[in-house]
């Protein structure tokens, strides 16, 4: 039964991937997309360029982001035993935003403005660096505070509050910034899968793979955490060490992805619930790969929808993930099946 579900998901993945590459402002027939992707000389040079330089990196980014954010959400929900937890609640996304705001809103800083204008907003190494540092800063703060706290719920609240403080700082900064600078920052907050190409894509892939590996290796301790801190400890788990490991891998995943693609919401909350509902398991050795699969499919679908098929307009990805993710969250909270667990 599970094998069939995985096969269905895999074929959905292939279909969504091809469709995502085929979609865009320039119409390329599916047949030619396959030709470009799988044969050495694909024919039409423009199409080859569009696919290899723009659409393929974007689709690959969607896959990486889908995997990373879903697993982040899964880990957070288990660690905090809270069905609505994801990486954004820990303030990690907020930290990344702070880093980006720091660069973009430093009024009069000509160098930063120059690099942004030259390389595009999401493509700037400066932005990526600032975002990663911001995420790391909040992560170190949380790990530091949490090492002296016993209760995971309190860690969660501390994370939410740190996020609030960070966003307040950003808001104050925005309030005193000129409209053009605010606009750039706002566009970054919409999130974007495009613009991660070449070397950046490679780095994103390495960072996310590392995070996923750590979280797969911690699947056993995540299972133990399902029973709560006391039971986990009674089974020989050093809860503080486990918590630091989980927060670290979450930070690597969320920090890296936010740095390259902006804050992308709702995937992290929604996908773990879909995975658990679909496979009816709480075994993380199973859930982590399944989350990757569903997250990938969902992210690709969101990207397809964002192209507004048949039009020249591209909507910000964050808008679409919220449109798709929020109903899932509502279904979890108020739906007919009891899915409130984690």
């Amino acid at each position, binding site marked *: 039964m599970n094998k069939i579900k995985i096969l269905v998901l895999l074929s959905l993945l292939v279909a969504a991937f091809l469709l995502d590459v085929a979609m865009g402002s320039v119409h390329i027939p599916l047949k030619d997309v396959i030709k470009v992707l799988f044969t050495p000389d694909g024919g039409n040079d423009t199409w080859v360029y569009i696919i290899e330089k723009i659409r393929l990196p974007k689709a690959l980014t969607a896959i990486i982001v889908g995997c990373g954010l879903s697993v982040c959400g899964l880990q957070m929900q288990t660690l905090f035993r809270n069905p609505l937890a994801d990486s954004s609640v820990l303030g990690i996304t907020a930290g990344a935003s702070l880093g980006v705001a720091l660069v973009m809103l430093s009024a009069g800083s000509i160098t930063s403005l120059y690099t942004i204008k030259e390389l595009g907003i999401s493509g700037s190494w400066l932005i990526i660096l600032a975002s990663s540092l911001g995420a790391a800063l909040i992560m170190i703060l949380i790990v530091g505070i949490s090492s002296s706290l016993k209760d995971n719920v309190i860690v969660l609240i501390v994370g939410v509050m740190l996020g609030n403080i960070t966003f307040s700082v950003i808001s104050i900064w925005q309030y005193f910034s000129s409209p053009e600078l605010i606009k750039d920052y706002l566009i970054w907050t919409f999130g974007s899968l495009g613009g991660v190409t070449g070397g950046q894509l490679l780095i994103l892939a390495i960072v996310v793979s590392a995070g996923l590996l750590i979280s797969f290796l911690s699947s056993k301790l995540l299972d133990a955490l*399902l029973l709560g801190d006391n039971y986990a400890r009674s089974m*020989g788990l050093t809860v503080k060490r486990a918590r630091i490991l989980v927060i670290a891998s979450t930070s690597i995943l969320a920090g890296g992805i936010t740095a390259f693609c902006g804050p992308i919401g709702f995937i992290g909350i929604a996908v773990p619930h879909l995975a658990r509902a679909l496979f*009816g398991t709480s075994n993380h050795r199973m859930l982590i790969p399944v989350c990757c699969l569903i997250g990938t499919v969902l992210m690709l679908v969101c990207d397809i929808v964002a192209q507004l098929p048949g039009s020249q307009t591209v909507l910000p990805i964050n808008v679409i993930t919220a449109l798709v993710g929020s109903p899932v969250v509502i279904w979890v909270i108020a739906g007919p099946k009891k899915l409130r667990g984690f």
Partner: protein
Amino acid sequence: MAGQKILLQTSGLTVGYRSGRNQSKAVAGPLDLTLYAGQMICLLGPNGCGKSTLLRTISGLQEPIEGRIELEEKNLRQMKPSQIAQKISLVLTDNVRSANLDVYSLIALGRYPYSGWLGILTDHDKLVIDQAIKATGTGAFLGRKIDSLSDGECQKVMLARAMAQDTPLIILDEPTAHLDLPSRIQLMRLLHQLAKETDKAILLSTHELDLALQVADRIWLMSSGGRLDAGLPEELVLNGAFQHAFNKDEIEFDAATGTFNIHYAGKQTISVTGDSTAAFWTRKALIRNGFSISAAAEKKLTVSGEDNHPVWEVDDNGKRAVYTTLREFLDTIKI
């Protein structure tokens, strides 16, 4: 019961809470306790006397304020969590309500201290799990989700998980809370049986005084002041420890019956003759209605006849009356 192998020993142990860095509040102690293999020990005591704190400290979840705990002759505080996990398993009052966790997976988590990095079960693990399932009678609901279990079933599953952890000591914190009477009896009987058959030591806290008196090999009786009396159930009844631990205003422990008296001593007295079941229940009915039973009373009641057709004869200073139903008798005598 095999020998008198000492599993756990405490010396000068004081338990309590730490509030702040250097402040602590002692709840109970100093305690010198010994726990032998194959024993079932019931920890009794009024609410708030520190039963859970003691259990949490013994199981290593909480640091002692003072004193030493030795687990199989090793200092508990110097043992790693993973080492303790192979010696002590727990059934806690913590609510485990993970919607997607099925019973078998939960029981299998008991093998956590023994499995490798990814938690893959070996054939031996599966064997131990199957034994735990069999011993606890949880085989019937293996495929179900934890959410769908009743409180009684859930406790059994948590016990099965502790059994799968395969430790010489199992500690249970109020396992009978929230259970109905048959489930309570069933669980206590099961624990007693496990202690006898597997030579594991079982330490549990409970409020089930009468059940504990029936099944425990030893009773640890805590009083609100932090005192702990340990001994055979009968010893503690006879030496007055129970009265001391539970006596509050208006409630008294009756050493003759091993129960607490709910009723005040009555003002009217009556003597009751007869040793049938009917006579026994008539005494209970009289006490409930405010009578004291005394052989020297002026009112004399004789319960005669067969059990299914008892006859109540009252002799009140020569005034005699005969009743054929208990209700009629009570209605008249209450005035």
